[in-house]
């Protein structure tokens, strides 16, 4: 029997948002034994995980490596990101505006007006959270102002719903995952629209667990690009991304402790020792060589503050400017000034850098 200490890890990552997941993935890819500790799926439930790089210093060391790693990891997870640091796309929102992004999951990437000239904006009868007429009108207006030639037309399809229910994105998403007849019903409803369009814009309903195979099946059947837009929470494309990335981390050997908040971060003489999780009955004690703190902008004050400045090696500093612990790194929106534009790019960058630092690879992260 291998003598693996079950609750001792090389690295503990706190937080399962974009930064924490990236950090955990990097550390695991470097052969480390990783624990991912989380309460809830970060901001994935609210959005779709798209990345914009505006506001990020392009000369930041390791930015390109970080984005490259992230693209590779999401590809393996079946929800590959398209785009890159030098790309800019305008992706439609359900309110008929355009959002500037540099990277997006493949199921959103094709919504850019330059990618298609005839765009069908498809609503679902009874779905109160998306109005295709309104969205098509606004998208056409914005596209013409931006001098993009795409034409937007509004459509409405009717989909069956479970008896006694109203159409809802969560119902459709779950049925897309579980029910082959529903997928066929959706395909058949979209077919006549697809025949006259280059791209279809849909509210996000294509499954909470589906990956490239399941979604590209629809595109192939329709012979037309399909692009989803995130709707009100729960965002189906966002939760899909989270579920796929989490499943991929499990496959990579990451041990996941979901649902139990951190009660205490144990630091002795400037050295991180372990965390106590608020498990039932008694705290669960996990120890590790390194901690990556990626608990986001709304987390509790675990180390005396709810956001931190860091030094060049991503080590968080206390109010006097001193390093809190020599084996503690911070990543994502818990860093000062990181909630402005480029939040997810910062999360990927700092998540990547902290994972590499935990693996003992001398990546430098310079702020600003």
């Amino acid at each position, binding site marked *: *029997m*291998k*003598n*693996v*200490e*079950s*609750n*001792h890890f090389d690295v503990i990552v706190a937080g399962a948002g974009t930064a924490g997941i990236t950090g955990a993935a990097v550390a695991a890819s470097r052969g480390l034994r990783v624990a991912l500790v989380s*309460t*809830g*799926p970060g901001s994935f*439930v*609210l959005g779709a995980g798209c990345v914009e790089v505006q506001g990020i210093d392009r000369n930041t060391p390791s930015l390109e490596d970080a984005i490259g790693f992230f693209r590779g990891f999401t590809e393996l997870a079946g929800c590959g990101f398209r785009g890159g640091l030098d790309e800019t796309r305008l992706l439609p929102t359900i309110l008929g505006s355009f959002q500037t992004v540099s990277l997006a999951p493949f199921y959103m990437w094709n919504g850019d007006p330059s990618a298609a000239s005839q765009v069908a904006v498809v609503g679902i009868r009874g779905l109160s959270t998306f109005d295709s007429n309104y969205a098509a009108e606004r998208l056409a207006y914005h596209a013409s102002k931006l001098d993009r030639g795409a034409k937007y037309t509004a459509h409405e399809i009717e989909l069956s*719903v*479970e*008896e*006694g*229910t109203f159409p*809802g994105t*969560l*119902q459709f998403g*779950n*049925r897309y*995952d*579980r029910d082959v007849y529903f997928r066929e019903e959706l395909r058949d409803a979209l077919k006549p629209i697809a025949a006259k369009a280059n791209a279809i814009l849909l509210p996000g309903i294509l499954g*909470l667990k589906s990956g490239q195979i399941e979604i590209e099946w629809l595109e192939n059947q329709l012979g037309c690009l399909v692009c989803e837009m995130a709707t009100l*929470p*729960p965002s189906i494309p966002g*939760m899909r991304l989270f579920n796929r990335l989490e*499943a991929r981390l*499990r496959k990579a050997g990451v*041990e996941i*402790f*979901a*649902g*139990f*908040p951190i009660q205490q971060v144990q630091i002795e003489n400037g050295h991180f020792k372990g965390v106590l*999780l*608020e*498990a*039932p*009955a*008694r705290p*669960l004690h996990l120890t590790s060589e390194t901690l990556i703190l990626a608990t986001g902008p709304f987390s509790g004050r675990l180390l005396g503050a709810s956001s931190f400045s860091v030094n060049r090696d991503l080590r968080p500093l206390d109010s006097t400017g001193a390093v809190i612990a020599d084996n503690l790194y911070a990543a994502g929106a818990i860093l000062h000034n990181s909630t402005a534009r480029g939040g997810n790019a910062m999360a990927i960058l700092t998540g990547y850098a902290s994972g590499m630092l935990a693996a003992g690879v001398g990546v430098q992260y310079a702020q600003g």
Partner: protein
Amino acid sequence: MRKDDISLDNCLKCADCNTACPMVTAHPAYPGPKRLGPELERMRREGIECDSDWLEYCLGCHRCDLACPSEVNVSELIARAKAMHKKTPVRKMRDWWFARPGLLGKLMTIAPGISNFALGLHPVRGAMSGVMKITPERSFPHYKSSSIRIPDAGTAKQGERVVFFPGCYIQYNEPELGCHVVQLLQLNGFKPEVASTGCCGVPSLANGDAVEARKRAEANVNSMVEAVDAGAKIVTACSSCGHMLKTGFANLLEGDAELEKKAEKIAANTFDLGELLVAQQDAGKLNTRFEPAATKLKLAYHAPCHQKSQGMGRPWYNLLRQVPGVEIVDLNSGCCGMSGTFGFKEEKYPVSMKVGSELFESIRNNAPQAVVTECATCQMQIEHGTGVKAMHPVDVLLNAYKESARN
């Protein structure tokens, strides 16, 4: 004020809980934990009538609690509403029995031969379906009257004292598994005894019988607290019993300070057997005298919901994947849908199977020789839904030891 009273206001309506709920996933008409929990709780606290038959469909899996980023005790709010829910007379009568598996077990094991024979007869099952609304689709587990014996193990006499809490299923349906638990404990240097307690109370709570659940909690707490005071650990091998001992007793005994204190003591000293063995391993004390494997054993692990809710990682998965010859994958395919007695209810049988369909598919794709899971009713559901043998991890681990180590 209790923690969950405050946490109600933490609900931001992000609907994470709804995306995690196995019932919402399989059965879109179910209003979901957000609605039945925090949203309606606000009404209930104002005294507004909002009882709903949907409360009966909460599986009690606690996945909503684990998904919530704001630490709202969602399932607890639903459980309390369930306890106030008014049922039809037939369901009330049936659920009265389902809430008392300990009593059922005692009655059935008076003459287990006759009980098992009768429960296997078509006319009997037809009548149970007609009168009690118990589905004829499933077979009942066999009842056995043998008791859990503790072999006289010379060296184990000196070991650390532990009290094994068998729970209803092991006690009345699979006492051999109880014997295996005891053997495994002895092999690892513990001095086990078997608790003379009844049902843990999970089935009572699941069937909305809070009064019975409280009785069970009180009886269990009183019968085990002495051993805990004397320094013994309580060991469970059923994930639902373990979940109850760790999380449920103090809530149920709210209002009686003395009992609550005892319940907290029990909770703090309750260990899942896998958790206990992993701690032994961490301390370098796990018995590893395993037989070299003659053949490969391809297994798939299903983590029961009440295993996840205990917040202890995956002790059994991590133990078994270190056993020679064992190849094991974690299915990670959600809830099985059985939820104890839920799957036996005629009107709930179809949705119970629908919830489990993702797990069944995953098992078929992995094609293991057997599925390993700690929960007895998960085992029943897996065998019923896939035809693949399901077993408790205790049996896999015990089999791995050398004959010499076992004797």
